[in-house]
């Protein structure tokens, strides 16, 4: 009897492991239009309203936890803030000058959202309804899908700047791969005329900061400089960036000389991904060679 139980247990275990591996390899190797992907998207569409309801139902609980957390932090930070206040006053004058320069640079680069509409973008406002728990995959689910005009590789922004790009779409919901996802890379440039260009990406395990690569050691980059999307397009090669030009990404926090020719630059993203509630998906827009044909570029 006991041996029979052991055999049954082992058979179930082996069967489930083999089933998982078959699913994994079949799903990983098939195209986006494959049957497993279609079934997955169909089921996700059914689950999407449940996620929305759960999100709405649990919002008061989340807010309560946030309130306790913020109150606890506020008590600890009060003394530090008083000390910082004096220093901040001194920096205020400098900040106002920097603000004026910033406005000027934004104007030069045209990162005004109204101007995005001028390029044919049709922003769709969506609410964040789910998040991944994984360390490597930093994605959020939003309640706008193909029915709202959302397509894969559409850029997603928030009030503070770039959030990421759409990675998966169902009829009623989409998943957005954040710029803090280690699989995501964004072509960026320093917000100054003829600023150097590079690719910003996250390191697995360090989602709070972004690493900016491919800046030559000769390029002059200083702390607190803004980094915005490069939005390049090269009709000759048929490739272009998935992101429109001029969307704020973050500010440079650290620069160091890299190994051979490139320096390593750390960027602090403007968007607080932990507090992300509403986003705008930039649907439509001008043709992007390569991207619209399914070839994604950073």
């Amino acid at each position, binding site marked *: 009897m006991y041996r029979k139980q052991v055999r049954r247990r082992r058979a179930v275990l082996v069967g489930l492991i083999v089933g*998982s591996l078959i699913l994994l390899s079949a799903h990983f190797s098939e195209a986006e239009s494959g049957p497993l992907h279609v079934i997955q998207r169909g089921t996700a569409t059914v689950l999407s309203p449940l996620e929305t309801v759960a999100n709405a139902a649990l919002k008061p609980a989340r807010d309560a936890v946030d309130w306790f957390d913020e109150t606890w932090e506020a008590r600890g930070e009060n003394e530090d803030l008083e000390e910082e206040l004096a220093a901040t006053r001194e920096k205020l004058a400098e900040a106002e000058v920097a603000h004026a320069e910033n406005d000027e640079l934004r104007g030069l680069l045209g990162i005004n959202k109204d101007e995005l509409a001028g390029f044919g973008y049709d922003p769709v406002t969506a609410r964040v309804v789910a998040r991944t728990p994984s360390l490597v995959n930093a994605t959020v689910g939003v309640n706008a899908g193909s029915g709202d005009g959302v397509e894969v590789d559409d850029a997603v922004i928030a009030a503070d700047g770039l959030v990421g790009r759409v990675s998966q779409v169902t009829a009623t919901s989409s998943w957005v791969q954040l710029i803090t996802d280690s699989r995501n890379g964004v072509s960026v440039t320093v917000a100054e005329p003829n600023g150097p260009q590079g690719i910003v990406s996250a390191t697995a395990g360090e989602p709070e900061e972004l690493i900016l690569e491919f800046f030559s050691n000769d390029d002059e980059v200083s702390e607190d400089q803004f980094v915005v999307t490069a939005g390049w397009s090269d009709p000759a090669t048929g490739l272009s960036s998935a992101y429109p030009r001029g969307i704020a990404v973050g500010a440079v926090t650290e620069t160091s000389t890299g190994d051979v020719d490139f320096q390593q630059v750390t960027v602090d993203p403007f968007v607080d991904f932990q507090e992300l509630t509403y986003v705008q998906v930039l649907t439509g827009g001008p043709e992007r060679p390569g991207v619209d044909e399914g070839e994604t570029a950073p």
Partner: protein
Amino acid sequence: MILTPWINFRLSLIVLVAVLAQLAFFSYFSIFGTAPDVVPVAIAAIGLLGGAVVGAVVGFGAGLLLDVALLETLGVSSLVLLSVGYLAGRYRESFEIDSAFAPAAVTGALSSLAAAGHTAMQLTLGVEAPVSGAVVADAIVRGFLAFLLAYPVYTLIRRSLRSALVLEEATARRPVFRNRRPVQRRRRRMPGSRVRRAAAGEVR
């Protein structure tokens, strides 16, 4: 565990609630830079209560649901969570759970393994990213958070599956016959005991 259609329904409901709670609640918080993960905690609890087979099957189903909901590669979470359920069940079948600490400790350890395994699988599936040492720290913190979560989650799941647990049934209910209290067992006097008590001066 006695599996009836009603218990299977309850198990499915527990999995659905755990996945939705993870996506819509726990993933929003960052404690020591890590979001708590309630799904492996629930699966470990089910494995600890139901055994290896139940744990593995429920873990597989929960992983599948998670991968479908997140539109991730199917099979990754299934493989990780079925391992969690199976190992938790094997612990239950091999050792006696005689304290509240044991389930929490097992859940914490298995959640750490699950976090590390999940990250490792994703990295092997072509995530071309430099890996920071924080991945190890993340697995440890997740284990600690799972240890803390295990106390309420294990208690809740045990209560909801109480009617299916053989041992719980035996200890939870006292025998009652036709609305009468169970008959008090009459103390039987051993032969010769009166003589021994008299010799000891207890009987006068």
